[in-house]
């Protein structure tokens, strides 16, 4: 005799009370992974618009040579805060939002392992973001040192620098709590039968990302703390006069900073690895090799940091070691790209908005990867280091790569989350506008970089004017296009058509196959058993 239990359809009603609070208190006290995922995603969008507004200021000033709109100090503050906010406020939280929403559903768990800690790790973020914003109103303004916060320029900054350091600490704490939560959830809460090698690739990439975060974050915390003590407590970690070394800061920062690049990229890879098979109606090609390639990228990311520092004057052996190690990253990254293309090969492709963004990601991220290969060659990098070529390169992998993956993910899962479809025609508009404008913005920056325009300058010689004008026009267009995205999402939530349980024919992870649309507030309280 056996008892058979259905996983959904009854017995849930008494649970849908959102923890007993309503209104704002519901969101402040929530420990539900879906609520927290939503909070992360909205927070990230607000930060995306904030950082984007700063980018608009930058592009406005650079529209023409000469100083027109802002003074150089404020310009530096803009580039610094644009970087910090986009990296720590927009992109990272966006993917943590996806992780919160999706990991429990994809592994068949009822929630995250530490639900209350999950709440804390989100609610730290708004405080950190406020500190960054408040720093603008301090004497001396926000720090104007670049998002890399290089010593010893940081010593010259005002109190805004200290607020930024504190904000970075908070952001780091939040990331570490989130990471420990994700690792524990993925390892310990998988449903019976959900072996590691059956997990959707998104879970794998997040598991590895969480590892990277845990390993890298203390290094960042140490770096900014030493900056703080150098500023106020008489230490000389980065000051040659006291026996320190400014380059040590760069080693420490990039030891964190390069894994950080993959902390941003790997979850994006994960999203793409869900979307492409779904619209190819064909399983992901080379699942196991994708897992190995992701791990290889993660490991390599710890031995390549000094390729950000070819111009500090390392010995020739150092230059060569970091050059070889860096070029090696092209191998596992190549494997991923080849696998994605092979997944599409002989599939039955359709091109709904998520797929468009995924293809856009694939194409443009690879372009950014190739300029990365060019930059990895120490000899060429000497010429291109700290020019607009580098700006173009990392915006191709981040502003296009990660952000497009984020858009692909939102369009892909929005029907599942909200139970409502977005407007497909508008989604396509959003894709094409974004793609065209962002390429106008960043493609020409390769040219100005090659021709010799340094980054982080508020004014430039006349020969760079053409490219800067074009770039600025593209940037304004891209910025405006994102308002369309907001409209599409709000329209879908308010009045979108009802979405189907399995909106996308080819989607095969548990949230599509085992849960109704919209997903109930509590899902998988009965863990499914996979055969």
């Amino acid at each position, binding site marked *: 005799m056996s008892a058979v239990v259905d996983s959904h359809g009854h017995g849930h009603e008494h649970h849908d009370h959102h923890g007993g609070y309503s209104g704002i208190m519901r969101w402040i006290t929530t420990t539900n992974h879906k609520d927290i995922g939503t909070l992360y995603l909205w927070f990230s969008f607000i930060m995306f618009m904030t950082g984007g507004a700063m980018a608009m200021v930058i592009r406005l000033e650079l529209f023409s040579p000469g100083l027109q709109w802002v003074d150089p100090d404020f310009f*530096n503050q803009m580039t610094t805060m644009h970087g910090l906010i986009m990296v720590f406020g927009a992109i990272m939280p966006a993917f943590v939002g996806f992780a919160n929403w999706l990991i429990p559903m994809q592994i068949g768990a009822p929630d995250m392992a530490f639900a209350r800690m999950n709440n804390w790790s989100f609610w730290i973020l708004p405080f950190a973001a406020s500190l960054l914003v408040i720093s603008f109103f301090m004497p001396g303004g926000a720090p104007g040192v670049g998002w890399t916060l290089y010593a010893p320029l940081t010593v010259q900054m005002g109190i805004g620098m200290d607020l930024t350091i504190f904000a970075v600490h908070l952001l780091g704490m939040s990331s570490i709590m989130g990471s420990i939560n994700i690792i524990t959830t993925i390892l310990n809460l998988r449903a019976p039968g959900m072996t590691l090698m059956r997990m959707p690739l998104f879970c794998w990439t997040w598991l590895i990302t969480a590892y990277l975060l845990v390993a890298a974050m203390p290094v960042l915390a140490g770096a900014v703390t030493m900056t703080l003590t150098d500023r106020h407590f008489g230490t000389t970690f980065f000051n*040659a006069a006291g026996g320190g070394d400014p380059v040590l800061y760069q080693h420490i920062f990039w030891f964190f900073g390069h894994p950080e690049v993959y902390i941003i990229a790997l979850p994006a890879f994960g999203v793409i690895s869900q979307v492409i098979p779904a619209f190819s109606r064909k399983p992901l090609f080379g699942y196991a090799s994708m897992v190995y390639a992701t791990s290889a990228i993660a490991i390599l990311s710890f031995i390549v940091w000094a390729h950000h520092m070819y111009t500090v004057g390392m010995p020739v052996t150092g230059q060569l070691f970091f050059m070889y190690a860096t070029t*090696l990253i092209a191998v596992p990254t190549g494997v991923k790209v*080849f696998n994605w293309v092979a*997944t599409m090969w002989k599939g*039955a492709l359709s091109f709904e908005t998520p797929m468009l963004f995924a293809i856009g990601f694939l194409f443009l991220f690879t372009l950014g990867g190739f300029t990365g290969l060019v930059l990895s060659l120490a000899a060429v990098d000497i010429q291109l280091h700290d020019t607009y070529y580098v700006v173009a390169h990392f915006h191709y992998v981040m502003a296009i790569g990660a952000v497009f993956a984020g858009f692909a993910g939102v369009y892909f899962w929005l029907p599942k989350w909200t139970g409502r479809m977005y407007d497909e025609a508008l989604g396509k508009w959003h894709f094409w506008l974004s793609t065209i404008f962002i*390429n106008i913005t960043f493609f020409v920056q390769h040219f100005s970089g090659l021709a010799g325009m340094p980054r982080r300058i508020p*004014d430039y010689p006349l020969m760079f004017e*053409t490219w800067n004008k074009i770039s600025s026009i593209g940037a304004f267009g891209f910025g405006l296009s994102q308002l369309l995205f907001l409209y599409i999402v709000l329209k879908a939530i308010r009045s979108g058509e009802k979405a189907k349980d399995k909106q996308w024919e080819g989607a095969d992870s548990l949230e599509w196959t085992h849960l109704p649309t919209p997903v109930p507030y509590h899902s998988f309280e009965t863990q499914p058993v996979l055969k």
Partner: protein
Amino acid sequence: MASNWVRILAVSAAGVAGLTAAGLALAAPWNLQAPVTKIASDIHSLHEYVMILVTLIFAGVFGAMFYSVYAHRKDKGYKAAQFHESTTVEIIWTVIPLLILIIIAWPATKVVIAQKDTSQADLTIKATGYQWKWGYDYVKGEGEGIRFVSTLTTPRDQIEGRAPKGENYLLEVDNEMVVPVNKKVRILTTAADVIHSWWIPAFGAKQDAIPGFIRDIHFKAEKPGIYRGQCTELCGKDHGFMPIVVRVVSADEYTKWVGMQKTKVAADAPKNIVAAAETPRQ
């Protein structure tokens, strides 16, 4: 219907953008500056070589992808195949990129080694970064003892838009660094306050100037002329306003210039020392 419109618009917009870009590329500088040193031209060829390889690979991979986008469409009734792994294929596309990397690594290594070889210089000059100007000390070789500070001369009026901008806007200084043609010049970089970076694109020479430390780089300019670059490490407010200008002259002219500087140095010695000492805080 709507999506067709989107597609047509998008394609034509992309076309227009592409054509515009191509047209502009003829008018605006879009590639590395013309090299005047062996290193810079090596960098130039290495860059071209890698770009050709990369473009071929890019075309191959995305040729396959776009063929798939064109041919394997659901709306054409194409039925999805279900293959999803092949160890052989994975090994092939791991090994081939590795081989390509080795092909690239060889010439890249040669250039790196050449860049780093600062031995046997004919002339050694120390470049010191200050907020926001450069100081030059001729340390060794002909002209030893010459020292001066090099500051932007572009007037505020041009920067703030009250006057038309000149040809060398933001790339002009009061005292250019002068070096002889076809001589190996070693630049020692350091800084007085924060990190700066000394760069002349046409020389393929860039080196961070780090306070408290001395690093070096070298170049051997093969053509007389005036070469201009900018500070490339964010160093505070006027980071964008501390250019580097090097005038490469014939050996004779150089000797003449050295002579002139020596007499000037003798006359202005006290003033220069004071100026150099005061530079970190303007």
